């Protein structure tokens, strides 16, 4: 799908995070995180539960207060709230396919375009729905009638309405059958082809690696690994990163 900006020829990072710390009240979760996402890249963010992956996404999109720097497309987003980041082209699809069950599919997607001029909104809503024909076919049904997997696709469709330059997906595979997981990851591949960058938080390592260009591993609030997906021995290195030093049996 067309994005709001062409894929950059330079290798300026699209999203740059440095020294990011965030938490919930007194509970500190993230400790001085540095990472980048380049334009048109798919970056996987992996890590065990409780590592802070969701917290990191929320800190970037402004759902949580944080300290440190977040720069997106050259703009300083350190004080941005979710409305600001969405308008800048950085969209966050939260975990748990939280769609508005009492509203229809089309209403759900229209709401994602709230604030856009009406014609643009209608056009971009159709574009987003075109990614998921199954959902488009149910446009007037209430979201509560959709299955979990369909709701997840609806949530991703919501994320696409703004033609984001970077789409952050938080565990889109959670609770989905393998077939649907592949569907979602196919959409990620299409986005990549179209020049949209994707930051993908995932539990399913193999599938995530297959869909990404680069990977970061987050554990205990810090980045513990950064690699290109082409590099070797990744599964081992990841396991070590997850479980700390003592990796006994190799996976392969």
């Amino acid at each position, binding site marked *: 799908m067309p994005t709001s900006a062409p894929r950059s020829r330079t290798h300026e990072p699209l999203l740059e995070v440095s020294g990011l710390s965030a938490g919930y009240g007194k509970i500190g979760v993230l400790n001085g995180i540095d990472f980048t996402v380049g334009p048109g890249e798919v970056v996987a963010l992996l890590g065990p539960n409780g590592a802070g992956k969701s917290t990191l996404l929320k800190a970037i999109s402004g759902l949580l207060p944080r300290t440190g720097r977040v720069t997106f497309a050259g703009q300083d987003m350190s004080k941005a709230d979710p409305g600001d980041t969405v308008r800048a082209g950085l969209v966050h699809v939260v975990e748990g396919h*939280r769609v508005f069950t009492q509203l229809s599919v089309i209403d759900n997607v229209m*709401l994602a375009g709230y604030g856009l001029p009406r014609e643009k909104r209608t056009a971009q809503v159709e574009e987003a729905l075109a990614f998921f024909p199954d959902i488009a076919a149910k446009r007037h049904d209430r979201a509560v009638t959709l299955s979990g997997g369909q709701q997840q696709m609806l949530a991703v469709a919501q994320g696409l309405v703004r033609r984001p330059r970077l789409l952050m997906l938080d565990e889109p595979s959670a609770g989905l059958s393998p077939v649907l997981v592949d569907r979602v990851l196919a959409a990620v591949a299409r986005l990549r082809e179209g020049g949209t960058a994707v930051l993908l938080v995932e539990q399913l390592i193999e599938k995530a690696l297959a869909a990404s260009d680069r990977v970061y591993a987050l554990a205990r609030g810090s980045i513990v690994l950064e690699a290109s997906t082409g590099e070797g021995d990744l599964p081992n290195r990841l396991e070590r990163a997850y479980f700390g030093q003592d990796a006994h049996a190799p996976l392969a």
Partner: protein
Amino acid sequence: MFASIVSYGLAVGAVYALIGITYNVMFSASRVFSFTAGMLGMLGGVLGALFINKMGMNAVLAFVLVMAAGAVLGVITEILTVRPVLKSIEQHLYVLSTLAFALMVQQVTAIEWGTEAQPFPVLIPIDPNSALGLVDQKFWLPVLACIVTIVGLELLYRKTLIGRAFLAIAEDSYAARALGLPETRLRLASYAIAGVIGALAGFTGAQMLLAYFGNQAILNFYGFVPVALGGMGSNRGAVIGGIALGLFQQAANFLVGGIFASVAVFAVFIVVLLLRPEGLAGAATARRV
């Protein structure tokens, strides 16, 4: 007298229903109940009488001004008493802050307007001998207001994007915020709308209830009963509850007299709540641990 019970009952029930809707709209936007619903109703009557009787304005202009005042008061409620405490860990401060504000307004009214109930003018000049004059307007005005409000809200929620944004926030404010919806502005708008509805209830009901500072306490309670019975956030429940309450109250008034009617209403209120704390149409409570 059956006709009297029905007409009074429907009319006052419609006022209660509208106050219940006021509570609900504020609740849907912020998950918080506010003591200012009754205040808005009271001011609808008092300000209307002030503008028309004391200041000589015509009814239409007064109506517009009173609605505007309602919107402004709704906004003040949100900014002053709700928003500051939403962030706090101390969960129940909003009860106190909205109570304090509502009391302040009530006291000013009692002092400046007086503690006597004052008459409210007839709004629409209708010849009592004509067909339209068959039923006194003090009965059908509130009912009409109620119908208009319900239809208006339905249109808002179903046909406009902002209305659907309200529904989204009411269902899941976290997801709404993540989607980039301007949560604060939308909440402000909801409170303004609630203010208008409350003022409308008071303005149209004042020919019956008169312009009286004591209406605040009455409407606070009797406007809440439909919410409690019908389920938090459910406007349909508020309307049914309100009308039922109005009819029940008038019937009881007639059959056993004022005091026992109040006791009866209170008893029903308590019993229903104890049996079903979430109201007759409400949903179960969320997990605590």
